[in-house]
């Protein structure tokens, strides 16, 4: 019998890879977004709403994470967006190693912004840092206003929360006051944007938010490589 103290973090490997990706992206001044949501909250619709405008000014690349199939990537390819599909095959989240492999398919000198659309899931993706500058979480009003309390980890890690499907809020019992209060208990700083991807409401705001991120990254090439990810 021989007792050994290890204290080895299970996510160490992933975090190291993600930090490498981050510094690689920093070197290329690429603004990286990690978009997470439950299935059906409207991640892809949101991208369809913002990308036509954004891609007029910037070179956008998208990595699509799905358990199976290329339906989402096909939707974005129609917009002439440089898209790569990762199929996770029953794995519920994207890991840094998958992003590293996917990046081989892009010319990093020709990208201003990389958007990673994570697997639709509010649980697992929250633990895996992918090297992003910002986490955008999409929630739709049809999911209910008590989502923050059910998925605290994910909500605590979001930099921006996009509340989607505002056009149908009247047909739901979604209480925005409760939602905001629950979000604030978990996350004091995240911005919250109320939008409708299909009707175009406040999409201009989201576009300018992303644009600001892209510009900022161009201007602040060597800003800190610290892990904003861990609170």
């Amino acid at each position, binding site marked *: 019998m021989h007792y*050994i*103290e*290890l204290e080895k973090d299970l996510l160490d490997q992933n975090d190291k890879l993600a930090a490498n990706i981050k510094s690689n992206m920093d070197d290329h001044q690429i603004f990286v977004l990690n978009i997470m949501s439950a299935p059906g909250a409207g991640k892809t619709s949101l991208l369809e709403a913002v990308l036509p405008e954004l891609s007029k000014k910037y070179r956008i690349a998208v990595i699509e994470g799905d358990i199976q199939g290329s339906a989402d990537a096909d939707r974005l390819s129609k917009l002439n967006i440089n898209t790569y599909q990762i199929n996770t095959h029953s794995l519920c989240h994207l*890991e840094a190693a998958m992003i590293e492999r996917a990046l081989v398919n892009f010319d990093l000198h020709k990208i201003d912004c990389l958007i990673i659309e994570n697997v639709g899931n509010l649980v*697992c993706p929250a*633990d895996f840092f992918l090297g992003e500058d910002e986490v955008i979480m999409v929630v739709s009003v049809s999911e209910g206003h008590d989502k923050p309390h059910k998925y605290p980890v*994910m909500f605590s890690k979001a930099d921006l929360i996009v509340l989607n499907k505002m056009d149908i809020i009247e047909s739901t019992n979604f209480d925005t006051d409760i939602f905001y209060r629950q979000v604030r*208990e978990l996350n004091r700083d995240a911005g919250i944007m109320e939008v409708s991807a299909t009707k175009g409401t406040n999409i201009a705001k989201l576009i300018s938010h992303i644009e600001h991120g892209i510009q900022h990254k161009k201007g602040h090439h060597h800003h800190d490589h610290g892990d904003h990810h861990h*609170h």
Partner: protein
Amino acid sequence: MQGYLPDRQFTGFTMHELSLAMSVREIVEDAAEKNGSKKVNEVNIIVGEFSSVSTDALEFAMEVVKRDSVFEKAKINIKSTKTILSCRQCRGETVMEDYIFKCGACGSTSVQIVSGDRMYVDSIDIEK
């Protein structure tokens, strides 16, 4: 557990823990080798409450990954720990209640997690 495949409706969650269990396997095999051991008696894992991991699912996943490993016969202990917040106002450290970011001493919301959001292999017991 021989040849058992997770129930379909279960897959989403167990797969998450399975990939973490694979990390445990790597860490333990690596540590055993470095210490010149071929048999691990005990693996102690700590899972923070403020992570996305279910200890039940992780326990199940560990049964799957321990096969043909140095810790095939080992006892797996998984301990869940509370989330500890430190306060920027009163500098106190308190246990997080109900997943709310609020100091348990002074009530300030200017707090940050100091522990309880990570999971790690705390220690192992090996045969030399």
